[in-house]
């Protein structure tokens, strides 16, 4: 088992080490994910119904009110 884990680890380790253009791509991916999840999601995209209402009943009451007003 330990041998397999070691083999898989080195498979990825060597793969990442030998990357050329891939290193730049990983940097782009990480920056992008940071912007998406740590900035956009956190500061600009709260889930409207989850943050404003505690229960599904309250959420459905609110939506029905919106749809029928």
């Amino acid at each position, binding site marked *: 088992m330990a041998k397999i884990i070691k083999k898989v680890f080195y*498979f990825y380790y060597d*793969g990442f080490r030998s990357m050329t253009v891939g290193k730049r791509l990983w940097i782009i991916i990480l920056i992008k*994910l940071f912007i998406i999840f740590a900035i956009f*999601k956190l500061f*600009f995209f*709260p889930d409207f119904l989850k943050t404003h209402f505690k229960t599904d009943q309250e959420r459905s009451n609110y939506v029905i009110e*919106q*749809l*029928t007003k």
Partner: protein
Amino acid sequence: MEHFNMALVDWSRAQFALTALYHWLFVPLTLGTSFIIAIMETIYVKTGKEIWKRITRFWMVLFAINFAIGVATGIILEFEFGTNWSNYSWFVGDIFGAPLAIEGIMAFFMESTFFAVMFFGWDKVSQKFHLTSTWLVAIGSNLSALWILVANAWMQNPVGMHFNPQTARNEMVNFWAILFSPTAVNKFLHTISSAYVLSAIFVIGVSAWFLLKKRNLALAKRSMVVAATFGLIMSVFMVITGDESARQVYNVQPMKFASMEGLYYGENNAPLVAIGFFDRTPSPNNPKAKEWAAKIEIPNLLSYMATFNPHAFVPGIHDLVHGNDAHGIISYYDRIKMGKLAIAALKEFQLAKKAQQDAKAKAALKTFEANYKYFGYGYYNDPHKLIPNVPLTFYSFHTMVGLGFWFVLLFLLTLIYATKDKLLQKRWLLYAALWTIPLAWLAQEAGWMVAEFGRQPWVVQDYMPTLSAVSNIDQTSVIITFFLFAVVFTVLLIAELKIMLNQIKQLKDGGQQ
């Protein structure tokens, strides 16, 4: 309609459109290139010739660049659902949940696992295992697209659900009806085949550039043969599925169909406008306006395309708005009345339930169910607000179709001259192939515009218009994030183009071996 903040609706729509259109710049190239690479690697494994390995690895790097830049851009659409479109998210939640969850699991396990083998596994795993991984990446990427497109198709043709008036949610009653609805099947097949065509054009265009520069000739010629063959087969498939999609649109979204063809007044033996330019579009103030400045028509083709009968009646926008008793078309005026009854009945049902007046609630529910089919129409007073932007839909549709036929011709010419080994002499064709690369993306985006602008004002066809789908949030935050997205996506696009162009320019000819 008066109580809706239309500026908020428009900004929310603009933001979603911007995100979706940018996201779709990356997706089709991933879907198609993954298969082209798999075919190239299969040739390598079959023939054992090193040049096919180099060819596969070169296109694999371009595929990786596109994948890396595009990955997770779609997640922003899901953020927007929760924040900007909360009424919609609640309304459709149970239907959307299943396909999107399956998509997430599939994408994670299939793509992520085999992606590593595909890139790191050369010379570390057996040839066959590596090839299997490459094929599984291709299949996994395309299956991810399936679930997203099934969800989108449900919005265009809502089936397999039951609306629960107690919770205001649509509940899934038949998963298979949603998965195999004709709209979903056609949308998936047409979208992926068009993505394959785009990828084939990308490979042909980049290879044409090598030939124009007289570099990497062996790689470029072989790549062109594979891409042109793949592209030609897929473009025929794309035309067939496109034709079937048009019939589906005619059946379930007749207003979109009439807008795609600029058909204001329905007729028997309806001709197809092959090329047309609008003069003034008819409006309530000017119903007799001359629609066309110029047009070329093909007699009876529209009737045939919609129904397989060249003499059949095809309803126009006027018929849908005002109704047509002879052809059993209920007017939008009547639909609005029924929609208002449904909305009022839903409200009454809720009030009666709260007051524990069971008989009243039962009567309200009966009225609601009888009229629910036209629920979304009830938000409008003027039926003309239910007409999409006709010129935009028409021009988008005709741009997509016109380019589609050019792509078929390009594949055919490329294949003919490649088999005669005369590609180098046909510099006009090489330039045409190179300049067709942006046109392939233009056709993709035009296709999405037909699908999404053409169905306006509906977010869920007939049940929910965009104006009732938005959250009651501050419009300023939507405007800010709109511009933030525009900046981030533009930076990502520039990064992709720069890295990709560098890789293409740096490629050194490895010879014929």
